[in-house]
């Protein structure tokens, strides 16, 4: 490595940092005022890029290249800002008083819908934009040629930073944003129309993200995977910089991007005869930066502890099932155990049942951290993936027997959950959620890029169990036994003193700690346990499908889990099981039939969140209560 290649990468890093900063800054401003973490923020970035690459050539035809390029960027920014305003009016307005989890899910639904809308409008292929007229050459610095556009982008970040700072300090609008960030009610009591302010803030945040995306036009193609990858990185940046701090967001963006650039610049190095490919480290650079910062400063570089987030509705206590409920559960277990026999008449039934069993274990493990634990994880797919890949790697590459391979997978998931969980449980509320999502993105990108071990984008094939699990019935019954064991364990723990401590920590961290409960440790152990059982679901999945690919462990898997839990109802132990069953049925039938299943899933989520916030179990309970009330009359 030489000094000039380092410089080259440093400028490159600053250019990436600018894009990242624009997304994170918008996210931060919106969160500050509305207290909503906008999961669709990466989508605004992506849309900005798509609209710019579409608009620039169109405008270019009439106005000439330069006007087309810059007009395209301006038009895309404006269009995305307007879209943001519309989204706030139509959707977010209904969510301001909803529980945090529902806000996250609803904006995630928006991400899914926007992604499919982009697929519909622009097709699945990446679209390249025009190069920047007048900035397509290079500048010479210390004998090295740097792309002019990268230098330009590197400068844009600080310019926007200063611009935002001036906006926030020098204008009345900015002062309103700062005031509302601290005390929304008081702002309203001073006669300021909150609704209008929120719309404007959302449009501003969306516009900044759209601008960030549009600027990438000359650097990277518009692609449908951008929304999630940018969102994951922006979350890391926001957590590292400190939620709500624009300055922190910029510093964190530079830090993350520069560490990555440094790793790339170092390339392959030799230490004591071993060669290390440092560029591989770019995959985990974000994780390392975040880990170091969070250990030293749990609220990020410039962040402060969130003023007590809105106290949610009091959770009703979990109750053991009554006699009729137990009888129903027993009947369901017998039905599932008899599935191989039923399969003689309905050939598809055991396949569907196996999917359901795996989904039930997955959803129940997520419910354990979400419901009794009160920690909404958006990254449960990570442990599913670690379990699946651990199992698949041990079974194929190491040639271990089925039980040993399965145990390896579970162990991998347990280790991952213990490691990531240690960081996550230190954070509360949306910080926790963002960090879980960021970890899951990191696991995903490692899996995607570490070809030697994971098979890269193809994944691992030929993961078949050996005797006695090599028959359909053998594997199914073993999976059922594992899942039932896991579910029984979770249920036992929820009602054990440990489960009570976990729920106490959820309901009031301070009071629980004052009564001698080590809340952080209880949370950590429960997170690790949930990750372990989730890993078991992943291992079963690998054997059931005979293969595992990155797609199966992407953030979509995490969201599926959340939808299962919500569909069933968070406030019941049976909820996730009912939800898993219903969701699997829905997925295996309806969603297979359409290319636009993401949008469909998004709509399902929105309907759930806006209309049926208590899920199937809540609905059933209400019916039962009504019937009881009717009988008593």
């Amino acid at each position, binding site marked *: 490595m030489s000094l000039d290649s380092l410089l080259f990468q440093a400028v490159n890093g600053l250019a990436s940092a600018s894009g990242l900063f624009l997304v994170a800054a918008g996210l931060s401003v919106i969160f500050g005022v509305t207290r909503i973490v906008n999961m669709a923020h990466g989508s605004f970035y992506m849309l900005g890029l798509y609209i710019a690459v579409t608009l620039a050539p169109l405008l270019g035809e009439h106005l000439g290249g330069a006007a087309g390029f810059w007009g395209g960027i301006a038009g895309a920014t404006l269009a995305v800002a307007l879209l943001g305003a519309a989204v706030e009016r139509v959707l977010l307005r209904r969510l301001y008083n909803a529980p945090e989890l529902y806000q996250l899910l609803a904006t995630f639904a928006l991400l899914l819908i926007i992604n499919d809308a982009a697929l519909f409008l622009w097709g699945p292929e990446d679209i390249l934009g025009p190069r920047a007229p007048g900035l397509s050459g290079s500048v010479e610095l210390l004998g090295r040629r740097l792309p002019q556009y990268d230098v330009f982008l590197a400068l844009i970040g600080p310019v926007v930073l200063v611009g935002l700072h001036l906006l926030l300090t020098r204008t009345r609008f900015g*002062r309103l944003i700062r005031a509302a960030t601290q005390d929304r*009610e008081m702002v309203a*009591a001073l006669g300021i129309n909150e609704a209008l302010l929120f719309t404007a803030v959302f449009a501003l945040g969306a516009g900044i993200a759209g601008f960030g995306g549009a600027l990438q036009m000359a650097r990277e193609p518009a692609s449908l995977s951008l929304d999630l990858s940018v969102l994951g990185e922006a979350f890391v940046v926001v957590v590292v910089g400190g939620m709500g701090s624009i300055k922190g967001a910029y510093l964190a963006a530079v830090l993350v991007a520069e560490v990555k650039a440094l790793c790339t610049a170092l390339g392959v190095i030799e230490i004591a005869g071993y060669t290390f490919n440092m560029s591989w480290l770019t995959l985990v650079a974000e994780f390392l930066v975040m880990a170091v910062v969070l250990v030293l400063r749990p609220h990020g570089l410039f962040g402060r502890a969130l003023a007590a987030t809105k106290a949610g509705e009091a959770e009703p206590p979990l109750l053991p099932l009554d006699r009729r409920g137990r009888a129903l559960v027993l009947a369901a277990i017998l039905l599932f155990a008899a599935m191989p026999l039923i399969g003689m008449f309905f050939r598809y039934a055991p396949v569907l049942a196996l999917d359901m069993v795996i989904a039930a274990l997955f959803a129940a493990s997520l419910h354990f951290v979400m419901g009794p634990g009160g920690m909404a994880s958006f990254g449960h797919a990570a442990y599913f993936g670690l379990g699946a890949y651990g199992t698949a790697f041990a079974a194929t590459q190491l040639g271990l027997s089925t039980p040993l391979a399965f145990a390896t997978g579970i162990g991998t998931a347990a280790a991952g959950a213990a490691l990531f969980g240690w960081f996550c449980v230190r954070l509360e509320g949306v910080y926790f959620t963002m960090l879980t999502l960021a970890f899951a993105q990191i696991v995903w990108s490692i899996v995607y890029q570490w070809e030697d071990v994971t098979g890269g984008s193809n994944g691992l094939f030929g993961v078949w169990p050996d005797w006695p699990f090599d028959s359909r019935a053998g594997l199914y019954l073993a999976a059922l036994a594992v899942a039932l064991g896991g579910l029984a364990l979770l249920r036992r723990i929820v009602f054990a003193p440990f489960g009570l401590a976990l729920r106490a920590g959820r309901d009031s961290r301070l009071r629980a700690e004052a009564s001698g409960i080590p809340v952080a440790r209880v949370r950590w152990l429960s997170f690790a346990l949930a990750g372990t059982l989730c890993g078991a679901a992943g291992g079963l999945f690998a054997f059931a499908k005979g293969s595992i690919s990155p797609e199966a462990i992407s953030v979509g898997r995490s969201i599926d889990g959340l939808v299962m839990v919500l569909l069933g109802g968070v406030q019941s132990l049976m909820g996730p099981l009912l939800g898993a069953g219903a969701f699997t049925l829905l997925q295996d039938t309806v969603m297979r039939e359409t290319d636009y299943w993401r949008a469909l899933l998004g709509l399902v989520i929105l309907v759930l969140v806006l209309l049926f916030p208590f899920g199937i179990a809540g609905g059933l309970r209400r019916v039962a209560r009504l019937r009881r009330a009717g009988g008593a009359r």
Partner: protein
Amino acid sequence: MTASPVPTAMAPMLEIDGLDAWYGEAQILFGLSLTVGRGEAVALVGRNGAGKSTTLKAIIGLARRRARRLALRGADIAALPTHAIARLGVGYVPEDRRIFTELTVAENLDLGRRTGASDAAPRGPRWSVEEVVALFPNLGGMLDRPGGQMSGGEQQMLSVARALMGDPALLLLDEPSEGVAPIVVEQMIDALLRLKASGLSLLISEQNSALCEAICERAYLIEQGELRWQGAMDGLAAASETAGIFGKI
């Protein structure tokens, strides 16, 4: 806005009848009724937790409420959002002052100012930064100081001054003397007397009898969310003694 509230010349500044209000799920007020005349100063008296703060929050729309009548100068405000009520000329000075601590004193004052569309709305006497500083001279020397670096008394003055910047006709003051030094209470009494003299209507929730006695003509005594007594200020002492409130220890 249909049925736009047209201020009536003769109606009292504030009329409340049968007001119920909630804090979360818990009902705090039960059928409260009170009136504040134009240019009148009225005290709202009661123990901690009696519902004084909730009454003021219900008027400005920060607490969920239901009322047979909730009217400002004869115009119904029961269905209006908080900001719209404020723009009709109601200034709110909350109990915990709620200064924007990140913003400077000048910026806090600026946020209280009316702009654009709200300029045309009904209002009380007009205020400028110079005028509120003349009322509270302490603020003059600290216009560039962040709100978070002020003493409790200074924050209290700023909170009143900020509400005045919106040119209110009715000022709702929630325990303006709580937790501030006696000298500041004196200044606050002076300032409020001058506001009253300028024609403002005041509704003051208080536990400090000295402040109320100096300013208010009438008082309402509430207990557990219900009205217990109402009458002229000089009858309050006897009434609250029987109720065991407001006692001079």
